[in-house]
């Protein structure tokens, strides 16, 4: 089948410059193909059949063929007459045919470099990282995994109030973060802690935020895992989904105007992509020519909702073209593929001042959060398959073992060291005092307005009256 043979290829849709750019990158060059209009008709029937859709009209196989070469203003002899409507320039057709559910060209292929055994499929695609970089990638993914384990357990013991693990998505974080300039601004959803870790967010910083202690720069105001770092150009996470998406477009536009040569990357899940703000973001980033990389983590679930209930098109990637955004789908468990795609996307975004969409296919191995038991809506066997047969950390480890860069002894040493480190910082964070109570009232505005000063006085007078009923001793003195 054509679909099968194309699945090895990366497809950057619709923007010739992007294709050209990709071709010039040695690591990516040979596998880049352009979806060609002439091939579309071959896909229409089989794709509709694949999607389980009845066909409206047996003769309606090829809708969009021949559009690619037609130029506005040509006579019928030179090609079909083009519409003059301001909304779109398109050839007229005398055939009544519906474009079929976005699948007339087949599913968008998923770009990968190494298979599940850590074997590079095409040597020209290997980014050929030096040993130090490979180790940093592997160690960061593993350390994130160890931190997740300990913080997850600590929530089960009631020591922190909430947690969300990153299991199974470590490669999307590390691969993309490594491909960025560290000054590029990050807007995230909440499951991108690896990006922060790659940039140098310390274990202390993670723990202090989760413990809402006085060392948390967020002053303990937000739930755990809502990290932020000005130093690392990582905008503070908020809970409302997809709100960061049009914001990222705006920040990218500001960067473009500032001429600082930087890009903005915006992470979001496939569930968040259903929000109105996702639509708003794709569209406004495109119309304003904002250098924004939209990075979708498609992990198959939004809490309990499988993707079948989330959308019926070809994932998130198929939407990019509709917004005029160059798009690629990538194997999110392949850290090198994520790296190459992000690297090329960043170069394109900054040089062309255009948004890019990356859809990283992956699987949410862990529960949605500590408030969720995913066995209520999916089989343990399904999860185990991803843990045992296709895990991003395992894949990189297998690659490194083949190169003689990693072995069981080093693995054991790393696990032991990471665990000790995390536990050490964990205990330190747990013993810190909470932030001073005055910070309940600061930062609502740039200064504390009169009405808040009065409310603060009222609160203090009340606490002073009932000192035994409020745990002031756990908080720093003002």
């Amino acid at each position: 089948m054509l679909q099968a043979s194309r699945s090895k290829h990366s497809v950057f849709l619709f923007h010739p410059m992007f294709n050209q750019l990709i071709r010039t990158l040695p690591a990516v060059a040979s596998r880049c193909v352009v979806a060609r209009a002439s091939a579309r008709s071959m896909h229409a029937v089989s794709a509709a059949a694949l999607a389980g859709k009845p066909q409206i009209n047996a003769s309606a196989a090829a809708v969009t063929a021949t559009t690619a070469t037609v130029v506005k203003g040509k006579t019928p002899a030179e090609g079909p007459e083009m519409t003059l409507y301001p909304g779109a320039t398109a050839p007229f057709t005398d055939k009544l045919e519906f474009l079929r559910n976005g699948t007339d060209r087949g599913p968008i292929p998923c770009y990968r470099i190494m298979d599940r055994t850590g074997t590079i499929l095409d040597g020209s695609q290997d980014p050929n990282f030096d040993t130090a970089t490979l180790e940093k990638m592997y160690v960061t993914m593993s350390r994130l995994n160890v931190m997740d384990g300990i913080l997850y357990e600590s929530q089960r013991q009631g020591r922190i109030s909430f947690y969300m693990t990153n299991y199974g998505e470590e490669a999307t974080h590390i691969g993309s973060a490594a491909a960025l300039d560290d000054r590029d601004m990050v807007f995230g959803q909440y499951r991108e802690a690896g990006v922060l870790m790659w940039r140098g967010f310390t274990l202390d910083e993670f723990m202090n935020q989760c413990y809402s202690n006085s060392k948390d720069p967020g002053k303990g105001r937000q739930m755990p895992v809502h990290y932020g770092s000005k130093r690392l150009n990582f905008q503070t996470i908020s809970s409302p989904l997809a709100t960061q998406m049009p914001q990222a477009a705006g920040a990218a536009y500001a960067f473009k105007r500032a001429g600082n040569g930087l890009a903005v990357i915006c992470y979001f899940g496939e569930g968040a992509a259903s929000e109105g703000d996702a639509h708003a973001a794709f569209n406004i980033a495109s119309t304003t020519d904002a250098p924004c990389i939209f990075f979708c983590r498609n992990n198959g679930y939004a809490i309990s909702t499988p993707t079948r209930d989330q959308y019926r098109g070809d994932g998130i990637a198929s939407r990019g073209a509709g917004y005029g955004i160059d798009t690629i789908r990538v194997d999110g468990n392949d850290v090198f593929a994520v790296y190459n795609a992000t690297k090329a996307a960043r170069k394109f975004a900054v040089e062309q001042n255009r948004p890019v969409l990356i859809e990283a296919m992956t699987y949410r191995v862990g529960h949605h959060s500590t408030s969720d038991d995913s066995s209520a809506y999916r089989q343990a066997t399904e999860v185990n398959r991803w843990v045992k047969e296709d895990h991003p950390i395992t894949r990189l480890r297998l690659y490194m073992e083949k190169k003689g860069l990693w072995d069981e002894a080093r693995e054991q040493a790393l696990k032991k060291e990471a665990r000790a480190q995390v536990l050490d910082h964990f205990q330190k964070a747990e013993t810190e005092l909470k932030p001073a109570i005055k910070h309940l009232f600061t930062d609502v505005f740039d200064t504390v307005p009169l009405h808040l000063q009065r409310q603060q006085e009222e609160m203090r007078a009340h606490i002073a009256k009932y000192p035994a009923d409020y745990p002031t001793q756990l908080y720093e003195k003002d």
Partner: protein
Amino acid sequence: MQSITGLSRLSSRVASAVRMGAARQQSRSFHASRAAHAAGFNFYPDVAPAELGETKKMNLYQAVNDAMNITLATDPTSVVFGEDVAFGGVFRCTLDLAKRHGADRVFNSPLCEQGIVGFGIGMAAAGATAIAEIQFADYIFPAFDQLVNEAAKYRYRSGDLFNVGKLTVRAPCGAVGHGGHYHSQSPEAYFAHTPGLKVVVPRSPIQAKGLLLAAIRDQNPVVFFEPKIMYRTAVEQVPIGDYTLPLSQAEIVQEGSDVTLVGWGTQLHVLRETAKLAEEKLGVKCEVIDLRTIMPWDVDTIEKSVNKTGRLLIAHEAPLSGGFAGEIASTIQDRCFLRLEAPIQRVCGWDTPFPLIFEKFYMPDTLRCFEAIKKMINY
């Protein structure tokens, strides 16, 4: 005092009418008397303080335009964007700004309010000055999440690592004679319930320019509502220079000893008219206060006034229940309990959607405000 006679007429289909407005400006004065009747208020112009220097006759949209022009000229990071702003805006507030400052600084957005505000938040978070326009305050609700959950909480939730203080969202608000449900609303109370946002409503061109420049420069996100009935009808001598008026400060526009009247926007002029009527008919001296900033509001000025007069009337176009008058009334009864001579009166829109053909009966007009004063005096 001077009455405005140059009221423009907006058709019942306000949005489409104003789009055509630029071309038809010349013919509008013919409709003046009908519109004045529909609007039900007389504009009371102010005299600008002499220290602000040279003045020029401007209406409210020109004053708003002037404030943005000054911003664009003095702050190279500043941009103005929203639906239809590039050609000058459906109310002409952004006229010539793209021509003067460039298409990358004054540009159209796609038709998507949540996108407009989200985009502005992102620009502000990246350190740029973002002036976003929502075409009508009635259409700000798609951006409610971005304003309430994002803009308002941006500084607080990050521990001041990040903020969007450089964001200003402008939106035309209020009754316009025949705006019906979706070209008449006054949504300030929704935003007043959101810690972290500032909400400002000017009453005149001088006020609009000074308050808008203050809002743009304030280091907090500000929602700036412009009473659209005054865009063309309110004309006064506005200082041409760069000046700001303080936020969170009410202004006593007329001193009095018997009753305190509090309002904002167009309603302030209704209250001035009411004060005039009360003095003529009842010999009652009203103190008229323009709240100007809805949040954080100037409690002390109102409190001081009510402690002097012993009576308070608050009036706004928005519906009564949950309207901002309720907040003022409860705060003042708490702070001035022993000085109040009569129950605080709220004269507001009824608790209905804003009605088209019944606008005249819906509005908290001069007569309804006058009746409330009589009630307090006779209590």
